[in-house]
């Protein structure tokens, strides 16, 4: 039902992002999607990757704060109104979107969503006729 998102804490200083991408490249981890949330002092890099467990372990060993979070990967068609379909479902049930970002990679099209209540959101979107990617499917 959920996919594992890799989150990494990075300070706003030179070269940190480069180090994260280098570690992932060296470990042969593919980045399917990415979003960066930033403040003036630090940022949180959120990624959907091909091997989240390995990526997390390696980054932690390299001294980064990294964690895995369950998020929804909601399949969306490439057409007008598709995103609204999803937000409308969530909104109707009073579910908040903490953050979201798009994924369009390896033939997959999805909106990565962290909702205030993940379980309820998963049920709501599937009940509403939308499909979710599972973790294995995503990483394959």
């Amino acid at each position: 039902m959920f996919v594992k998102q890799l989150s990494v804490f990075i300070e706003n200083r030179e070269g940190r992002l480069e180090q994260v991408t280098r570690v992932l490249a060296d470990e042969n981890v593919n980045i399917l999607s990415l979003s960066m949330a930033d403040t003036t002092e630090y940022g949180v890099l959120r990624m959907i990757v091909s091997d989240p467990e390995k990526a997390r372990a390696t980054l932690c060993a390299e001294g980064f704060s990294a964690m895995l979070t369950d998020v929804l990967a909601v399949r969306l068609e490439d057409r007008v109104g598709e995103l609204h379909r999803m937000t409308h479902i969530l909104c109707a049930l009073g579910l908040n979107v903490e953050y979201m970002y798009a994924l369009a990679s390896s033939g997959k099209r999805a909106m990565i969503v962290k909702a205030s209540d993940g379980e309820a959101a998963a049920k709501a979107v599937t009940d509403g006729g939308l499909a979710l990617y599972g973790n294995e499917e995503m990483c394959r």
Partner: protein
Amino acid sequence: MIWNETKECMSRDELENLQGARLVKLVDRVYHNVEYYRKKMQAVGLLPGDIRGIGDLDKLPFTTKDDLRATYPFGLFAVPLSQITRVHASSGTTGKATVVGYTRHDIDVWSECVARCITMAGLGKSDVIQVAYGYGLFTGGLGAHYGVEKMGATVVPMSTGNTKKLVTMMVDFGVTGIMCTPSYLLHIAEVIDEMGVRDKIRLRASINGAEPWTEKMRQQIEERLGIHSHDIYGLSEVMGPGVAADCSFHRGLHIQEDHFLPEVVDQHTLKPLRDGMTGELVISTLTKEGLPLIRYRTKDLTSIDHTPCECGRTTARLARFTGRTDDMLIIRGVNVFPSQVEAALLEMAGTTPHYLMIVDRVDNLDTLEVQVEMQEGFFSDEIRGLENLSGRIAHGIQQAIGLAVKVKLVEPKSLERSDGKSRHVIDKRTFD
């Protein structure tokens, strides 16, 4: 002008006799009234009769902040609580405050000492004096306030916080004197310029203390404001501000020797040092009733000069303080120990994360930033979660030290470690 010529200008012989007589009484008093002291003296086989004058001073054991902590809150008081008219408290190293108590007579003596210091700064009865130290448990505000009242000038109890209001009143009330920390006075000077009222102020003199500062800073204050600036010293355990201050000759701070018997000792061997040699200041409170202290180690570094001063006072002078023997920081006049920050972090996180305190002075105001390394259990994928975290840490530290603090989250292992232990403080302020 000298506030109390009889006491401040007596011959050294007379003064030392007076100190001796008072010391004998002090030792007798604490031996009979304070169990803790009695046990300490018994432990080294000392009876009150063994102390016959100041020549016997070094037979007595030292007192430290640890003794105050061990007897928290009132264990070292030498009178029943019914005779204590006021308490003050300063931050302790591990969360618990150091509590000090005063009898009515102690408050009188304290006010007298502050009155002497204000007079040393050339201020008198017809002056209007703003006290811009914090009022409350901190001894600065109320201590200075009572001194101004005792001296007979008009006191304006500003406390700290609203600098524009302070400047407006400075202009409107025709304020001629101010007592505050030196860094705050420099900040006030900036606000005066911003408000464009430089030619409307009538300030003549300032009495500054409660934080380390330099001769250069004193000159800067004098030039910027066109006033005389004086250094005042004190510590709450001993009394509060007014233990010592400098006269118009600025050759060190006259210590009120009829009430406070000073020694300067080597901080490691604890052996008394000659005049001019820098060491730890040790004070015995000769007249205090509420919380008498025998050979209290101040942890402040200075040297002493017993030669007469051109001003006519015969009291010994302490050189400008050069630092501390411990890791205590003085930030905006508030005593801060890194261990307090550590304890606050421990309380919040369950373990102590690596942290670094960065003290700086921006526009003449001290700032404290605490960098905290991200660790397992801290991290969140949501910015809101991280902001909550830094907010909670800031709040916890603020509760512990009584100072606003900026918390910055940093990556794991990004803070410097030296010799396996991390360095916890970077003080970027310059005191020279």
